[in-house]
């Protein structure tokens, strides 16, 4: 199969299979992620979507922004739904009723992935369906109005865990979904960011060439929930990478590889400062929060580097 080089010049000659006219908020980080994922595929793609912003905004009434076969069923079952589609594909292919090579992708937000869809995702990964699950991670239930999820970062102010006078926002760390998925022993798990579009698309391309279950967690800033500007989704996703808050790495057949190492690891506050959800952490009495957040990032980054090193050796 002819492959499109990962240059924007060449990619822009391809048809974008998520159209204009969708109703995601101005400056949302999710549509560029979906656009990059679909552009990276050299194969026809069939997708499932968990209930959430991406789903409600891209398929309302008679208006669908999808130019690929697409299904939304419920919030917590995108993985099981695409597993059903993929299984029917295998059945019909075995029976000689279909001969095309088709790839299967599920999209879910962090609520639909880390939380309510976790079991469905874990089951689908364990069963070995030939599918790629993509979590677009904006760190809260943004569609219902910015409620805390297990992907919400430490300290963040959300509508269900607001920065109050007694409890200053979310006091727990994010669930490390990518490593949990890698621990399923699946052939490929990775983290990506739309700021690093080439890295993201390379990972999607690689994932689609691997048979079996694949998982990618992709950061997708939400200016409403993060209380940031409408123009900084890409900038913030870049800062998430450069501060090592959201490191870009992949775990391929158990081997960890950091795919983008920041030239200079920026302080976490560079990522936190432009976001209103962390504003209270900059108050003098909450200094400990900034310190703890930075320590957590440092610890995780060091751990990841150790894992990558160990993979190099072995």
């Amino acid at each position: 199969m002819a492959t499109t080089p990962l240059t924007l010049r060449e990619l822009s000659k391809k048809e974008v299979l998520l159209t204009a006219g969708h109703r995601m908020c101005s400056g949302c980080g999710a549509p560029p992620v979906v656009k990059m994922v679909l552009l990276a595929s050299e194969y026809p793609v069939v997708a499932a979507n968990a209930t959430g912003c991406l789903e409600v905004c891209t398929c309302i009434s008679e208006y669908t922004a999808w130019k690929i076969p697409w299904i939304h069923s419920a919030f917590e079952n995108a993985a099981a739904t695409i597993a059903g589609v993929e299984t029917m594909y295998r059945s019909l292919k075995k029976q000689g009723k279909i001969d095309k090579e088709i790839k299967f992708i599920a999209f879910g937000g962090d609520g639909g992935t880390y939380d309510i869809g976790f079991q469905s995702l874990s089951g689908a990964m364990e069963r070995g369906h030939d599918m790629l699950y993509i979590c677009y991670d904006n760190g809260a239930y943004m569609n219902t109005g910015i409620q805390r999820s297990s992907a919400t970062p430490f300290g963040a102010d959300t509508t269900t865990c607001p920065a109050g006078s007694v409890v200053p926002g979310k006091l727990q760390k994010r669930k490390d979904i990518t490593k949990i998925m890698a621990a399923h022993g699946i052939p490929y798990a990775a983290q990506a960011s739309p700021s690093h579009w080439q890295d993201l698309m390379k990972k999607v391309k690689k994932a689609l060439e691997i048979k079996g279950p694949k998982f990618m967690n992709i950061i997708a800033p939400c200016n409403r929930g993060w209380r940031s500007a409408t123009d900084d989704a890409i900038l913030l996703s870049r800062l998430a990478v450069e501060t090592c808050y959201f490191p870009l790495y992949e775990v391929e057949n158990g081997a960890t590889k950091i795919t983008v190492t920041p030239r200079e690891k920026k302080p976490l506050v560079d990522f936190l400062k432009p976001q209103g959800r962390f504003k209270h952490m900059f108050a003098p009495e909450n200094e400990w929060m900034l310190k703890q957040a930075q320590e957590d990032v440092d610890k995780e980054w060091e751990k990841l580097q150790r894992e990558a090193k160990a993979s190099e050796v072995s």
Partner: protein
Amino acid sequence: MKLKGWKEVTPGAVVTKAGSAEEFKTGSWRSFRPVWLEENCIQCMFCWIFCPDMAIEAKNGKRGVFKYDYCKGCGICALECPGKKGKKAIVMEEEGK
């Protein structure tokens, strides 16, 4: 547009016209308008890949005009635009001014 009656809706609410969202114009959401200054454009295509609204035309590997019918005016393109010699190729202008 005349709303359909129950006998006319598609069984199971399946949408059979792919990409029909293009019939829905989101340009009216915009309060700031991106303006392309071609002379400062190096055709890096960052604006095209980062645009959340698929509102930048691409032809023969080069960026074309803004599709103002869809552009919501977020300004990502202008912020990410590297421009030429320190001069941006995309600037945001307030609508109605």
